């Protein structure tokens, strides 16, 4: 008869337990585990063993050996340890093996025994050596905590983003604490340590003594402490064989138990099954195992997410399995298949025995243009393995040219990077590359490169215009761009130079450049400007008033307004001011001065090249109807009507318009007929119109 309860053993009064083997380990261990440093990764991850960690004998033959096994004991890697003595091993959440050396260096290995990187826990640790070390996990990553020979703690809460923190001193601490652990509360990592009968909590600012609630008196030292995986619970084992279990915040006691064993346990850990409501600790001595538990409210355990599961498969290079899972779960490509393919490609580029062409082709065949796959990431990995040529080949598959640029720069293919940046249309990226090129190439080569890339050239010119004027000049010189050189010096004559001699000199250089550019117009205009500038200077010296930087027109006007008519005329002759302009200018200036006498004299000096209508207009603008009328009579027939209307002589305007038989003029006059006064005139026009129509 089968007895279902046969393998269940009583535990206390009301509970039973049973032991059965889930699976047997595949490994063939020759050493005792107790002689090794052992680290098992969480969630059934790999196991690392360091054999002969303490090589007291100096013989080289007994160098430590690092073995990595899967959780079921399948060997994954084995390597001879050639670095310094190791104090502690641990796995990060990303399944990287962290090996903490006595000198504070932490060596990082992948789960296939591939060396990844190393980092140091700082100078203080190096000087005082590592006494003890813990690798711990928080929701932000995996951290390392170190106890040094000087009994100080240093920790980094996340080895992925290394920030070392040296914890404050524990007052009066002369020897190593009897036990310690890391705690994580409110996103901050603390250290809890026991010194004799006292417990201290260290945070980054202070060290404070703490007391667990409901602790029995008479404790003279703590032998072990254990914190649960989620940092919610804490267990303490005292020298009286008493176990205290409570919250890690030390605010609440859950239960206590006296086991009457006073020997220090080898190990004490929290254990619970997922979703189980039972919380328990397991305490182990050399030949005894004890489970202590209580059964209060529910605890939810975070489970492995599907993403983490996939990551783990990828780490184990089980790509096809991972892809099948993705497809089975119908994960979106970007999160699923693409990501795994990208990982596969990154692994592929590390296969040194395959040629660049074959690797590139294999990758492209498998990946094609799968969305979410970044060829530039894969290329970066290839470059990281020292395969520059392969990286360049892979980059060719990258559709976004902008993405290619950073890696090309890193690989010192700056010219290629420049054309890719230009292709991307991202000017900022182009500029970044330009500055790289500028530092990398000598000036001549740099300019040559620019010459072939107009877009980059104009961008660099823009920069130089504001920041490196001399370079701008060199750029134009190199291109024999005399037109722009001319403009450059013209600008300098306004902006950079203040002394008149300097300004004239700049203009002279500009003139020469314009001649070289065969821009005779600009050259002549600049020569004129030099003359004018010199003359304005002289005028300022000799006469009152400001002349510098006025236009030619304004210079003459200023002279007239100042009563220097002779000078004005001289200037007009010297600079060959056309008659029309001179007449407009004088007319305006004299009217401004309200010098009606001089204006009349001027109007009679010769036949006006601009006619006399402008005289009428300008007088009316100054509200001088009397003067205006004088000129209205001299206005030629085509503007006569306009002039008469301007001075308000509607009747005569009507007569002229009728005489001209001009319909447009007639309606213009008519539109000016207002009120009763012009009634007769309006009638006259209407009659004339009627007559015209009869004919």
């Amino acid at each position, binding site marked *: 008869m089968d007895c279902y309860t046969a393998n269940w053993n009583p535990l206390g009064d009301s509970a039973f337990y049973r032991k059965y083997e889930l699976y047997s380990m595949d490994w063939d261990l020759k050493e005792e585990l107790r002689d090794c440093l052992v680290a098992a990764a969480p969630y059934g991850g790999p196991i690392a063993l360091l054999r002969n960690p303490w090589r007291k004998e100096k013989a080289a033959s007994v160098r430590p050996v690092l073995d990595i096994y899967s959780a079921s004991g399948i060997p994954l890697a084995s390597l001879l340890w050639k670095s310094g003595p190791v104090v502690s091993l641990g796995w990060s959440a990303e399944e990287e093996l962290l090996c903490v050396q006595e000198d504070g260096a932490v060596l990082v290995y992948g789960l296939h025994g591939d060396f990844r990187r190393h980092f140091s826990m700082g100078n203080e640790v190096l000087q005082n050596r590592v006494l003890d070390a813990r690798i711990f996990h928080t929701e932000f990553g995996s951290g390392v905590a170190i106890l040094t020979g000087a009994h100080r703690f240093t920790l980094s809460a996340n080895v992925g983003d290394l920030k070392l923190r040296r914890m404050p001193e524990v007052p009066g601490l002369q020897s190593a604490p009897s036990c310690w652990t890391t705690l994580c509360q409110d996103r901050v990592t603390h250290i809890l340590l026991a010194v004799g009968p006292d417990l201290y909590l260290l945070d980054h600012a202070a060290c404070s003594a703490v007391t667990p609630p409901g602790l029995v008196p008479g404790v003279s030292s703590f032998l072990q402490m254990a914190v649960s995986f989620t940092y919610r619970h804490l267990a303490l084992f005292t020298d009286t064989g008493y176990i205290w279990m409570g919250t890690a915040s030390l605010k609440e006691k859950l239960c206590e138990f006296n086991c009457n064993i006073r020997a220090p346990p080898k190990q004490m850990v929290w254990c619970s099954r997922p979703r189980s409501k039972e919380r328990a600790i397991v305490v182990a001595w050399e030949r005894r195992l004890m489970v202590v538990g209580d059964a209060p409210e529910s605890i939810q355990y975070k489970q492995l997410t599907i993403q983490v599961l996939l990551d783990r498969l990828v780490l184990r290079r089980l790509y096809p399995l991972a892809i099948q899972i993705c497809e089975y779960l119908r994960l979106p490509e*970007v999160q699923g298949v693409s990501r795994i393919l990208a990982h596969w490609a990154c692994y592929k580029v590390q296969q040194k025995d395959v040629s660049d062409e074959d690797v590139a082709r294999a990758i492209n065949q498998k990946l094609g243009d799968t*969305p979410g796959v970044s060829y530039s990431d894969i290329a970066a990995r290839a470059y990281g393995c020292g395969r520059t040529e392969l990286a360049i080949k892979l980059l060719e598959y990258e559709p*976004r040219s902008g993405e290619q640029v950073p890696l090309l720069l890193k690989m010192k293919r700056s010219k290629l990077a420049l054309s890719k940046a*230009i*292709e991307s*249309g*991202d*000017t*900022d990226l182009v*500029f*970044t590359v330009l*500055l790289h090129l500028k530092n990398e190439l000598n000036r001549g080569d740099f300019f040559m490169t620019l010459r*072939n*890339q*107009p*877009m980059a050239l*104009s*961008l660099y*010119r*823009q*920069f130089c215009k*504001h*920041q490196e004027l001399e370079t701008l000049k060199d750029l134009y010189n190199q291109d024999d761009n005399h*037109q722009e050189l001319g*403009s450059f010096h*013209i*600008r300098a004559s*306004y*902006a950079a130079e203040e002394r008149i001699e300097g300004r004239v000199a700049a203009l002279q250089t500009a003139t020469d450049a314009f001649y070289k550019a065969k821009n005779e*117009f*600009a050259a002549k*205009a*600049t020569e*004129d*400007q030099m003359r*004018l500038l010199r003359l304005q200077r002289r005028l300022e010296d000799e006469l009152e008033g400001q002349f510098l*930087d*006025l*236009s*030619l*027109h*304004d210079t003459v006007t200023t002279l007239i307004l100042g009563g220097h008519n002779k000078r004005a005329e001289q200037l007009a002759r010297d*600079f060959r*001011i*056309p008659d*029309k*302009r001179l007449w*407009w*200018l004088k007319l*305006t200036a004299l009217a401004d001065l309200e010098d009606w006498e001089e204006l009349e004299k001027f109007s009679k000096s010769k036949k006006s090249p*601009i006619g006399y209508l402008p005289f009428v207009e300008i007088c009316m603008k100054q509200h001088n109807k009397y003067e205006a009328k004088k000129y209205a009579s001299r206005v030629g027939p085509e503007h006569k009507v*306009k002039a008469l209307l301007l001075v308000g002589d509607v009747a005569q305007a009507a007569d002229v318009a009728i005489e001209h038989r001009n319909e447009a003029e007639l309606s213009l006059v008519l539109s000016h007929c207002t009120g009763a006064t012009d009634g007769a005139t309006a009638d006259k026009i209407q009659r004339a119109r009627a007559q015209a129509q009869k004919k």
Partner: protein
Amino acid sequence: MSPLDRIANVSILKQHEVDKLYKVDNKPALSSNEQLCFLVRPRIKNMRYIANLVNADKVAGRTRRYKVIFSPQKFYACEMVLEEEGIFGDVSCDEWAFSLLPLDVDLLSMELPEFFRDYFLEGDQRWINTVAQALHLLSTLYGPFPNCYGIGRCAKMSYELWRRLEEEEDGETKGRRPEIGHIFFLDRDMDFVTALCSQVVYEGLVDDTFRIKCGSVDFGPEVTSSDKSLKVLLNAEDKVFNEIRNEHFSNVFGFLSQKARNLQAQYDRRRGMDIKQMKNFVSQELKGLKQEHRLLSLHIGACESIMKKKTKQDFQELIKTEHALLEGFNIRESTSYIEEHIDRQVSPIESLRLMCLLSITENGLISKDYRSLKTQYLQSYGPEHLLTFSNLRRAGLLTEQAPGDTLTAVESKVSKLVTDKAAGKITDAFSSLAKRSNFRAISKKLNLIPRVDGEYDLKVPRDMAYVFSGAYVPLSCRIIEQVLERRSWQGLDEVVRLLNCSEFAFTDMTKEDKASSESLRLILVVFLGGCTFSEISALRFLGREKGYRFIFLTTAVTNSARLMEAMSEVKA
């Protein structure tokens, strides 16, 4: 008004403990505050301003906190300058990816007036990325665009960059129903003529006269008929403005006086009212009437002020000359008119505008005029404008006629290459070949000058030419009309060749099938380098005629004066 005013005005900023606001210009900010925040465009000039300020503080031994916010994005060159000036460590930088400001129900502005000079003069493509980002934002909001058309090199680049952004982030817009059926890209340099004309529809005229900034205008005392200036928002919410904004100016006054009479009549109704009716009137209608009254008197004031400036003979002559230039009549007479304009120093910007209009409509000035007008201009307005002319030549706005009037086949081919991104190696000098305007030929092909039989009734416009008194259909708008009609560039080959720009059209049938018929009537027009209110009015008219609805996205609202100012070199 500045874009910042539209988003967070001074009082909002004060509520958030902003002590004082300074304009980033050449003057130092004399603030005693411990924190300074700079909201700037990513320009080297601004970096130097900040560097000077920070370094002055250092010399004075004072420590403050500095924050630089770049809008719409940070450029590496700027950080470089901060580093070179030794203050990179002293400031913290941030980005404000602000790219679109809705100025009205149908008008989105990027408020990047510098786009025009940066791209069309300096060849700086920095803002194309910003345009692409803005479009990307729109397509995340309104779904994909089934039909894309465009003309111009910048249009093509913007389109391609935008497509790439879409492809990179596929899935976001995938499967969405398109809400806007068409998008049309247009480079400003393919139609300078329209932008250079004097505006005569009300909104354009207000912009030309008072300058509308960020959808708001400052009406001075001459308009408000008080001693104060008034900031007025001009958009569809202003009921009076909304009715006259697209009208030819000659109708506006009549409309406003009719409106005033109606208003008076509504006020007058209260005479025969009993108490109850009166109570009703006061509580329900009076406020609306008063509001309308206020707006009406403002716009009447604005009209009067415009009339004072514009109905003078000068303006009539000016318009006459412009029309002559557009039609290609009496070129000599127009040239003398421009010469006189310069001689009389009427206005440097106006003179320049007329010169450019002459140059573009005539495919460049004949050598004699090119020289003499420039000489006259330098004499009138100062020799520094030699640089202005160099700018205008480079942008193709003021050029010398080359012997042989039309583009040869080889030139046409070369310029096609120039517009192609892959052929970027052709030097600047060569690319000026592509700047021929060919306005006359295009005008004939597209029938831009309507045949006049009898008076053009501006009250009942028959085509888009009404925005220029019936004399000219805006080229840019005509092209849009033609392409939308054909839903492609088919049959416009000759026009495209004359325009010398690369054109494109893409239709995605799978997207179009998903679009509702209503969304297929919706057209987003993207103006790269700015658009004018006249163009907006013309397209609104076209929309009413053909049952489309246009939405405008422009790098900035522009007009002739702004274009000319962007090209002018002024002494620092």
